[in-house]
Each structure stands twice: as C-alpha cells, then as structure tokens.
C-alpha cells in the first residue's frame, strides 16, 4: 500500500518538476490535460493516500509507544502474569497484537476516530510543547468506558454465560459499574511497579 502511494507521489513529483522547469509546454492542449492531472488530480490523490497511510500507521502499537511517556505501557503488555488484563489480551491475541493499544482505547462511537485524532494531537502538544506527565500519573479522560470492553465481549458466549456478567449486564451497559474499577478486573498496566514484575519473552 505504501509502495503504491510512493510511486504515485514520485509520478506526481516528476510531473510537478517538469512544469516547474518548463511551464511553457502547457500552451499545447495535450500538455494542458497532463498539467491538470499532474498539478490537481495526482496531488489530491497523494493527500488522500498520505492521510489514509498516516491514520492506519497511527493505530499501530509501535507508533503509540514511540512516545516516551507511553513506553512503560508498552512494556506492561509483556507482564508474565495473567491477572493483568492488557498483558493477557495482548499475549493471547485476544486483540490484534500489532494494534493492541488501539483495540482497547479507540473510541468506537460514530465520531470516535475524529475525537481520537484530536486527543492524539493534544497529547503530542503536551509531549513536545508543554511538560509531559509522569507515565504512572496518566489517566484516561472520563475514565475507561465499559463500551471499550463490550465492543468485543458483548454477545460472546463465554462472556454472556458467565453468571456474574449476565446478572450485572444492565449496570455494565449503562457504565454504572466499571469493568475495571469495581474490583473485578482491576489489574491493568500497573506501570508503577514494573521494576518488580517478571516479563514474558515471546521467543521462549
């Protein structure tokens, strides 16, 4: 996909360079059409393709943890203890490992991707212009919503047949009771105590 975009960019670049050096060729009707393709259609396609590539890339785990503050969160996915929910999901491929952060933290509402991008830009601003917070003090704005969990788990047989889940379903759906902070699944990234934890190595 990136290869296709790159060849499109290079073709557009060659045409734009040709018109930069010899703009006079557009006196010919044929070259007028080439100019329209090279200076309007292809660059517009490069914008769309570039934006799409950047959005897909920003969903990758290695993109998220390339920010210094997120690095311990990335390491926490390798915690060798199944009580830690993110590590358990990541290591057992309950979420796609390459997009593990996005799978649990994306806003799945209709304007969610736009809100996610706006939040991401705010974080980049904080990282490079303001003072970045300590990793352990980072909290999700408004708390972790059950919708993130239910997006995958709702309707899944082992989840729905669990008597605890089925009896609490109404409270879970309305966010009255949190999956994470109500004492059921409270072990998440635990970046405060990573020094004392054992880590799983995928090669072993």
């Amino acid at each position, binding site marked *: 996909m*990136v290869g296709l*975009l*790159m060849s499109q*960019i290079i073709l*557009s*670049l060659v045409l*734009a*360079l040709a*018109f*930069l050096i010899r*703009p*006079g*060729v*557009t*006196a*010919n009707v044929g070259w007028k059409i080439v*100019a329209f393709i090279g*200076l*309007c259609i292809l*660059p*517009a396609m*490069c*914008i769309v393709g*570039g*934006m799409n*590539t*950047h959005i897909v*890339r*920003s969903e990758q785990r*290695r*993109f998220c943890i*390339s*920010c210094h503050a997120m690095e311990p969160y990335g390491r926490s996915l390798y915690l060798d203890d199944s009580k830690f929910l993110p590590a358990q999901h990541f290591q057992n491929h309950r979420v796609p490992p390459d997009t593990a952060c996005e799978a649990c933290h994306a806003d799945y509402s209709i304007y969610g991707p736009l809100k996610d991008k706006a939040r*991401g*830009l705010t974080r*980049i601003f904080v*990282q*490079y212009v303001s003072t970045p917070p300590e990793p352990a003090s980072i909290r999700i704005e408004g708390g972790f919503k059950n919708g993130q969990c239910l997006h995958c788990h709702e309707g899944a047989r082992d989840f729905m047949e669990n008597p605890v889940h089925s009896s609490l379903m109404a409270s879970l759906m309305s966010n009255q009771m949190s999956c994470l902070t109500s004492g059921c699944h409270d072990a998440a990234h635990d970046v405060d105590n990573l020094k004392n934890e054992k880590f799983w190595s995928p090669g072993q």
Partner: protein
Amino acid sequence: MKISALRIEKFLRVSSFLIVLGLVVEIISLLWFHPLSFVLFAFVGITLIGLGILVYLASLVFAGPATAEEKTST
C-alpha cells in the same frame, strides 16, 4: 497589476513549486515513523500541496491569455 494580466507560466511555476515542496514533506513524513511525522504531514504537507492545487486552479480562472510573443516562442 490586475490578476488577469499575470501569465499562466507564473501561476504554474508557483503551483509546481508548492506541490514539489509538499510532496517532499510527504515523503519525509512517510519515511519517518514518529508521532510528529503525522503533524508534519497534516499541517505542513497538506497545506503546501493544497495551496499548490489552489494556485493551479486559480491559474485556470484568472490567468490572462498568452501574448503573441509567447505564442511564437512555444
């Protein structure tokens, strides 16, 4: 000077220059795997390419016809 008196070549030069610059920024942003690469593309690359396209479209509307001298030179 009236905008319609401007030669189409001038518009095309400016438009091509902006597009070349924007595409170079886009290539850099695609080769650089970093959160700032998104910002570079979204705010610098898209602005430059977009301006280039607008200048080209403006040339279609506002640029004056080529003079007799220009016609003979091409």
